[in-house]
């Protein structure tokens, strides 16, 4: 019996070891290289290996640090906004729609992603412009006398673009969490006399929090590293970290780009650690794997 188990374990290690090792190499090695290069010195168009904090110093003392703070703020504030929309959508799909229709609704959420994200951003620009459909409607109905300028090239446009781009992604993990809740727990709450709102607050919401957190991380990371939306809808040089890193690469300043990327990855790792600290990842993954 033991021999059979050991053989099965060895088989599993062999089967999974390769892909796991490959994933680790494909993710960890580039990250380590990025970290290493961030300490190198720039020399002409290339780099000189060494250890200097010049790139970090330039980053924290220059205009790019303001971009980091802005990225944080935008990601931090847009994530709850996206959650507020994604959660009810996931809730409706899980509890209010017939199981036979669930797949269709989940598919519908993925339809926008069949169109390139840059084209989607341009479509928003067309809709929200001074001569766009939204402004025409507002004037036609008499809500506005003249075109509303802040619809486009503004914070409003950025948040709208981010919600449209990342909110649908956030529905999936929340739906997974909600779908994994044992319905008997909800029924027990009802039978014990809790009203639907209290059942939601004391049973459904706490049990769906791992999915909510996963969704929050998807949204936060996406918003934090966004490039196209800020460039197309943001107006006069609205910059997020993705734009600032690209700009450093435009002058082949690899150590600076690496330093900025390392700071961003560090922030993301911190968030993931917090997530792991507060929630049992196995519970969430188990639900994803159908266990």
């Amino acid at each position, binding site marked *: 019996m033991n021999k059979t188990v050991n053989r099965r374990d060895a088989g599993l290690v062999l089967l999974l070891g390769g892909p796991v090792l490959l994933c680790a190499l494909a993710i960890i090695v580039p990250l380590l290289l990025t970290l290493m290069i961030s300490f190198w010195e720039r020399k002409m168009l290339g780099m000189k290996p060494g250890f200097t904090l010049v790139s970090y110093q330039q980053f924290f003392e220059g205009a790019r640090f303001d971009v980091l703070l802005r990225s944080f703020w935008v990601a931090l504030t847009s994530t709850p906004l996206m959650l507020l929309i994604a959660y009810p959508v996931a809730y409706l799909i899980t509890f209010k729609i017939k199981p036979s229709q669930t797949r269709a609704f989940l598919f519908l959420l993925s339809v926008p992603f069949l169109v390139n994200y840059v084209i989607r951003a341009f479509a928003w620009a067309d809709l929200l412009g001074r001569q766009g459909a939204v402004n025409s409607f507002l004037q036609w109905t008499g809500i506005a006398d003249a075109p509303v300028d802040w619809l*486009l090239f503004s914070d409003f446009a950025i948040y709208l673009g981010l919600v449209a781009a990342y909110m649908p992604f956030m529905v999936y993990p929340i739906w997974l969490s909600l779908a994994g809740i044992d319905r008997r727990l909800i029924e027990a709450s009802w039978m014990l006399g809790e009203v639907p709102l209290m059942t939601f607050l004391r049973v459904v919401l706490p049990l769906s929090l791992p999915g909510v957190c996963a969704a929050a991380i998807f949204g936060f990371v996406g918003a934090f590293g966004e490039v196209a939306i800020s460039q197309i809808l943001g107006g006069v040089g609205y910059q997020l970290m993705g734009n600032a890193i690209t700009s450093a690469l435009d002058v082949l300043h690899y150590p600076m780009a690496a330093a900025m990327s390392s700071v961003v990855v560090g922030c993301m790792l911190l968030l993931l650690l917090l997530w792991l600290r507060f929630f049992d990842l196995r519970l969430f993954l188990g639900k994803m794997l159908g266990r």
Partner: protein
Amino acid sequence: MISRLQSIHRRDLLKGMALGLGAVALRPGIALAEGVTVTLADIGVGDPDGNWSSYTDATGNKVNVVSIGNGPSAVLNQLIAGGGRDTYDIINIVGGMIKPLVQNDLVVEIDTSKLKNWANNAYIQDYFKPGSKGYDTIAFDGKIYGVPTVLQGDSFAYLPENTGGTLDSYGALFDPKFKGFVALEDNYTTAGQKTALYLKSAGLADINDPADMTKEEIARVVDFLIEKKKEGQFRVIWSSFEQAVNLLTNKEVYVIDCWEPMVFAARAKGVDAVYAAPKEGYLLWAMVANIVNGKRTPEQIEASYQLLDYMLSPEYGAAITNLRGYMTNPGAPEYAAKSGKYDEATAKKIAEIDAGVKAKFTAPGGTWQARWPTNVEAYEEEWQRFKAS
């Protein structure tokens, strides 16, 4: 007998081949290369829609056009780390970055004596003569590394219906009358240089050379732009062709720092857009073709020279002027009118484009676009400051 004849024939043949090859090699202008495929990395402007038949018919060589990004970093990255030195024979890119290309051994010196269309090209002789700013676009340290294939001068566009008349100064970009209806390009070597040209011409800043500013000078330019940005002067900073065209056609802005083909595109959509003739002069630039420094056989090098020479021919020039709306070489209008390949209206269009761009090059003032100025890092850093402000 047969054997003897064969032996004689073989000897005669070998002797004849040796003499023939020697004669061919010694005669200038005779092609050694035939059946070679030249790989041309182009940003999309220099491809005559895949029609290289005249070059192929004349030389027996073919052209393989591959796309290359327009940004200086994209070009340099591709050549330094992307295997471009082994893949490309010629790169045809927007000039103004010869210095980093040469200093990093990415391109080779051009022997202009191998180009029969070089000496008789009046535009090269006039606008790229040694000592001129144009010369710095094709040469470094007194040696020529690039062949100018396309020439243009940039300014800004406006919608006369909305601005209420003709605009003839870059000052329109900063005029409070158009507050909130102005767009700039997200590019420190175009928007930055045009602003510098305006500040210098208007006596608002002490700038020695708008094409190659010191750290202090670019900082002064950006300070001015930040001041205007905070006043709400600019609606947006655009970063793609379509975006700029849409800004004009949707009348999102009335004054825009942009390229002339965007005006053509807006007009094609029925919008009355005008490309300004500013009194401060134009931002001049050229597409420059360079031979890449890589392992090449003599036949490949010869074929590359033949292609460069073809790109200086009136036939190629007429095709590119017609397709892209840029000036190419002095013989293009005449070729379009007399070759029988173009109808009268197209030939007229080519002549008008040529005359229009020529006027930009002869207009007073102006500056040449430097895509990799001496203080490029400071430019980028300052531009970040402008955008983040």
